[in-house]
């Protein structure tokens, strides 16, 4: 009987599970953790490649998510909401360790004008993903994070805008600049 209830829970959407958690169902939250821990571990390992204890950082993300679950708006998607918490947590870690500068505000947030979302074929995306993966460690955090979210976490512009709280057009601009930097690093390596 218990297994049937658990299986039933596992078939629920993220939003439904979040709603159950808001009503006090811990098991529902456990399933959400299971669904997102690998994605967030991958995101954390790529973004914070130079840091130890990524697992602790991810655990902290879920603890914060549980504490703040009542602030989750059920009319919106759950994924950008949890990624936003992870982003804030990772940025705090970067700030604390001071290993690399993280710029919160940039002119491209003020002036970047509407940029159409780029549609890439699966093969194109896969090829670019391979190049990016090789050079990711050498790129600035503000470009690195957007590239990870777009190429590895498969988020669209609107989701990335919600995760990072930046304009949608800025997402496009930073993706382009990030790719340019990757190309530069790649060409320098070839020499």
């Amino acid at each position, binding site marked *: 009987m218990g297994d049937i209830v658990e299986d039933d829970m596992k078939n629920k959407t993220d939003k439904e599970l979040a709603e159950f958690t808001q009503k006090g169902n*811990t098991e529902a939250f456990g399933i959400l953790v299971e669904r997102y*821990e690998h994605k967030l571990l991958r995101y954390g390992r790529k973004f914070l490649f130079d840091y130890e204890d990524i697992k602790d950082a991810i655990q902290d993300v879920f603890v914060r998510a*549980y504490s*703040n679950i*009542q602030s989750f708006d059920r009319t919106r998607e759950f994924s950008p909401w949890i990624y936003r918490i992870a982003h804030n947590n990772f940025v705090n870690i970067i700030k604390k360790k001071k290993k690399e500068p993280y710029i919160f505000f940039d002119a491209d947030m003020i002036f*970047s004008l509407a940029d159409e979302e780029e549609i890439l074929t699966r093969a194109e995306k896969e090829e670019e993903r391979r190049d990016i993966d090789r050079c990711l460690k050498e790129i600035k955090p503000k470009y690195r994070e957007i590239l990870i979210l777009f190429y590895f976490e498969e988020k669209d512009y609107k989701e990335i805008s919600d995760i990072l709280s930046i304009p949608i*057009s800025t997402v496009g601009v930073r993706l382009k600049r990030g790719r340019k930097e990757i190309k530069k690093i790649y060409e320098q390596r070839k020499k």
Partner: protein
Amino acid sequence: MNKEKSKNSISEEVVSRIESGEVKMRSKKYFFFRAALVVGFLSLLSFFVLYLGSLIIFVFRANDIILFSGMGFHGFRVALLVFPWYLIILVLLLMVLVEFMGTSFSFVYRRPLIYSLLGIVIFVLLGSFLVDILPVHRPLFDLAKQERLPVMGGMYRHLGDLDIDDAHFGEILGKEGDVWVMKLESGDTVYLEITERVKGFRLLETIKSGNQIVVIGEREEDIIKVSGFRRLNSHSRGIER
């Protein structure tokens, strides 16, 4: 296998920390009050910015600062020196604070910040002119003049009646030979020495006895070397005072 182990350990650990009571869920009320606090603070901040914006317009109007800027280089310099810069800087800083607080809302951060910044600028300009139409600052200034306004009285007395170097308000008494005689607000009578710069001005020919005017120029005892002047209309500070 290891992957499975790690997966279980994170979710199990988080769930066990929740079940042991170590991690607690914040109540809905907490987030409701927090959101209400942010909205309330933003509204208060917006009203305060409009109050300050309309106060700047009042200072401009009450002291005829706009008139000075059209009175040659000397007049422009006087206007710049008397500009309520600290109020303008304060309004700009508060506008940045409103923008910063606004970025926590998705309808603000999803668009380039230039749009919300422009929106705030338009809101402050239009709102300030609207507040300026309402009887807000003038009655407060009148109360302050009568020493009946506590707390803000000093500020209104200072801002509504700025001490402006090289600007002289008063009334034309008449001509003594070729020289205009003017009675200043202070009660002093002075002679206006028309400099080469203003000699050709057509406005000079239309000045009559009894006209209220403002003169820009250095004063040496009872002579003012006029480098610019304007006749005051019924809205100007000389008439209103």
